[in-house]
């Protein structure tokens, strides 16, 4: 039996979750927010409430912008369950979570999923070596623990988050041995038609250019148009090798930070069997949702990067919109009221998203880094290579679930988070069809691991 009942349950206390909680509470709904961490902020504003001023300043104004939001969230009256790992959300509105070593359940009339995004897997040779981390991981270390590499670091890949990290490292005095950028002239040409949108988001563009200037002025060596990335080493990474224009390069490093974009975290939405679509501009799966983030499953909506990558400011707007949608569907506000409150949010959201087509085109991750060569590990947990998966396809496995049943890829503890996209694209590529036709892993609970003792409950 559920322990508690709420009007609205929100999973995730990042910008989307916090905004949704604030808006919902303002209209008198009973709201609970569950989050894995101790403090609010999600990943983008991680540790924002405990960051000393010096660190907030070093991380930049976009990070600091999370603080007023977090303060409003803390004051809004929503119940905030911290250190809670939600392991299942049901279409009937039950939220099962693990908290302090025991499993609990609460019931809600509406659920808003704000579990954000994850780093896109970056399967290059040697990506599983100790010392290879994602740019997001490096930011988490910086934000939550002031931990930075002690030796010169190499950043590789593409996308705003990579450059932002470089900029933050320069400000923190971390030596960067190289920024190896996979962006090429072809990417700029592809992005050019979307320049109109970019110019509409000119503030964003200006910020990006300023960031690059800081990196260049700090003397960070840049390599652009990089291909054939490979992490070298046996027990840990010792170097990154790559080619530019056919010429081979090798840069020694004991810390390699990879990044080529983030993708929606779709574990909950897949587990609910909500409808999804493959978005070819962002090369990821996105849940089908209406203007309020409502899924094909009644009573459940998504806000933030979980819908599609839009960034923190867009996430906050979507959070508020999803709350308005939920409030209306609960009968707490009229449709007129909902639409009136939503109008400025929707217009601001459109403004925020205008830069996306340009960014998506410019920083489109390279196919070779999404669909790797045979000897590259695709499933990190079970150490299944791309070649093995191609063999499964030849034996008649037409989709990820058959490949999983056949060869264990996707069956490890990460539940396909690090390999799912790669497997979908790899099979699609091997079969000559689109990822939309191939589909994704069937995701089942528990979404987070729960022990037999925790599931069994007290004796």
């Amino acid at each position, binding site marked *: 039996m559920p322990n508690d009942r709420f009007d609205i349950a929100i999973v995730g206390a990042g910008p989307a979750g916090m905004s949704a909680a604030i808006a919902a509470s303002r209209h008198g709904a009973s709201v609970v927010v569950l989050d894995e961490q101790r403090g609010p902020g999600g990943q983008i504003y991680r540790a924002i409430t405990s960051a000393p001023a010096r660190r907030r300043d070093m991380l930049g104004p976009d990070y600091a912008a999370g603080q007023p939001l977090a303060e409003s969230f803390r004051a809004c009256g929503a119940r905030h369950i911290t250190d809670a790992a939600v392991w299942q959300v049901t279409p009937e509105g039950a939220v099962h979570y693990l908290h302090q070593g025991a499993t609990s359940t609460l019931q809600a009339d509406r659920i808003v999923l704000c579990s954000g995004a994850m780093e896109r897997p970056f399967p290059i040779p040697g990506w599983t070596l100790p010392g290879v981390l994602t740019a997001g991981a490096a930011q988490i*270390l910086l934000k939550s623990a002031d931990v930075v590499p002690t030796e010169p670091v190499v950043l590789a890949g593409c996308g705003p988050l990579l450059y932002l990290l470089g900029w933050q490292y320069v400000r923190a005095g971390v030596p960067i041995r190289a920024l190896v950028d996979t962006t090429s002239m072809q990417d700029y040409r592809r992005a050019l038609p979307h320049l109109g949108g970019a110019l509409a988001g000119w503030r964003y563009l200006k910020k990006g250019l300023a960031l690059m200037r800081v990196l260049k002025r700090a003397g960070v060596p840049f390599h652009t148009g990089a291909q054939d990335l490979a992490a070298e080493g046996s027990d840990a990474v010792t170097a990154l090798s790559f080619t530019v224009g056919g010429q081979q390069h090798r840069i020694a490093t004991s810390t390699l930070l990879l990044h080529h974009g983030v993708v929606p975290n779709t574990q909950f939405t897949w587990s609910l069997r909500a409808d999804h679509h493959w978005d070819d501009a962002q090369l990821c799966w996105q849940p089908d949702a209406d203007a309020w983030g409502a899924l094909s499953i009644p009573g459940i909506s998504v806000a933030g990067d979980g819908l599609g990558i839009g960034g923190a400011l867009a996430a906050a707007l979507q959070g508020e919109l999803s709350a308005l949608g939920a409030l209306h569907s609960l009968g707490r506000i009229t449709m007129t009221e909902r639409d009136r409150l939503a109008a400025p949010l929707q217009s601001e959201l459109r403004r925020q998203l205008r830069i996306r087509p340009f960014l998506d085109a410019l920083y489109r991750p390279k196919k070779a880094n999404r669909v790797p060569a045979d000897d590259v590990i695709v499933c990190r947990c079970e150490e299944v290579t791309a070649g093995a998966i191609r063999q499964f396809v030849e034996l008649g496995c037409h989709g990820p679930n058959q490949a999983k049943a056949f060869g264990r890829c996707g069956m490890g503890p990460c539940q396909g988070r690090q390999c799912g996209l790669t497997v979908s694209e790899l099979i699609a590529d091997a079969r000559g069809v689109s990822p939309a036709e191939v589909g994704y892993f069937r995701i089942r609970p528990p979404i987070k691991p729960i022990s037999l003792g925790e599931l069994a409950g007290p004796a």
Partner: protein
Amino acid sequence: MVSFTFDGNPLKAPAGCTVAAALLAGGVSTFRTTPVSGMPRAPYCMMGACFDCLVEIDGVPNRQSCLITVETGMQVRTQRGLRSLAAQDRETQHAK
């Protein structure tokens, strides 16, 4: 600062940081070896999504060190291959 050990060696870390951050800051390179092939692994994502940061904490294996706050006196160990099932537990059960 919080004092803890890794494979018996003393380490220190600021209070409130995760075990994974504390280990990385303490210069630890290998957190675990995989059950499939014994290859060395260390944190990759730092947000609970990759499960490469698994270590044994106070005798309990398979803990995601990036999601656990470091505490004074914690005994952290490299997780080698298959997680161990505390053999001592089995003995005590039979002794009852």
